[in-house]
């Protein structure tokens, strides 16, 4: 531009050229702004939603611990012998929408993995509160299918490591009634329309269940939602809250509940 003005010093830009330049500049700045907003959106979704959800989920666990506090947890110093039989598991009543069912502990996901399980699978539950229980499915410990959904990425990324589960891994569910130990069996990648994974006997529609299943659903691949990854587990044992937590998660339970 400077060169041009030197070459033709006697030609000031006309009004039309000035307006055009202004319009091009404003349009350019708006486009750059749109690009920056999109980048910020990605940062918000991949990072900030995790920060927000983690804080909210700790709060939910704290509240759950306070409710448990009415019945003081026994000292986990003398855990009863493993394999002790406590009879038929107690099955709690389903809470209302967004009510807390309990806490899930998965040692495979790290020693600090404690996530709340909340009733419902709508966005308000999954985006902030943690694992959402499909309200049409069974409660923990019931014969049938206890199915939960959780985000693979963003909003706490509660099931980010679902693909790292190894058959035999223990998955613990704590409710106000006690502790349910599930054992991971296999996973499966399906299309999002496969509602039969939520059937009382997963993938077998119309079959009467005789066993206690836990089914977890999350998105697949990790940063997409074209498919779903499903993890199936079978209940192994149950112990009432008064018997204390299973030895493997005693410290996690103490840390999670101790906050209350």
């Amino acid at each position: 531009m400077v060169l041009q003005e030197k070459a033709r010093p006697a030609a000031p830009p006309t009004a039309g050229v000035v307006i055009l330049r202004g319009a091009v500049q404003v349009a350019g700045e708006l486009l750059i702004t749109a690009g920056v907003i999109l980048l910020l959106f990605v940062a918000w979704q991949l990072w900030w939603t995790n920060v927000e959800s983690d804080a909210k989920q700790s709060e939910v666990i704290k509240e759950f611990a306070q409710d448990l506090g009415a019945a003081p947890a026994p000292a986990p110093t003398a855990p009863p012998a493993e394999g002790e039989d406590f009879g038929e598991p107690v099955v709690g009543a389903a809470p209302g929408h967004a009510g807390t069912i309990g806490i899930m502990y998965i040692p495979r996901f790290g020693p600090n993995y404690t996530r709340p399980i909340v009733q419902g699978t709508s966005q308000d539950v999954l985006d902030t509160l943690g694992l959402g229980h499909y309200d049409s499915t069974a409660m923990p410990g019931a014969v049938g299918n206890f199915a939960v959904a959780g985000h693979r990425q963003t909003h706490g990324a509660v099931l980010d490591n679902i693909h790292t589960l190894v058959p035999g891994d223990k998955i613990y569910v704590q409710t106000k009634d006690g502790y349910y130990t599930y054992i991971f069996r296999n996973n499966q990648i399906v299309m999002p329309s496969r509602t039969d994974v939520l059937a009382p006997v997963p993938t077998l529609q119309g079959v009467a269940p005789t066993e206690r299943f836990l089914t977890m659903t999350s998105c697949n691949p990790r940063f997409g939602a074209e498919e779903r990854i499903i993890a199936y587990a079978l209940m192994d044992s149950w112990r009432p809250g008064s018997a204390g937590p299973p030895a493997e998660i005693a410290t996690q339970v103490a840390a999670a509940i101790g906050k209350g």
Partner: protein
Amino acid sequence: MYGWIFRHLPGPLWLRIVTAVVLVAAALVLMVQFLFPWMSEYTQFTDSTIGAASQP
């Protein structure tokens, strides 16, 4: 556009810089609070539920 806004902010240079920073921060808060949650409803990169059962 942004140059025009900056030139039309009142006060001395330091005050205009402060005002500009506050305006940018306010825009960020508005985006995080309202714009991004609204946008995420239309970009289902993260839906983790199964079929129609996800709708209560």
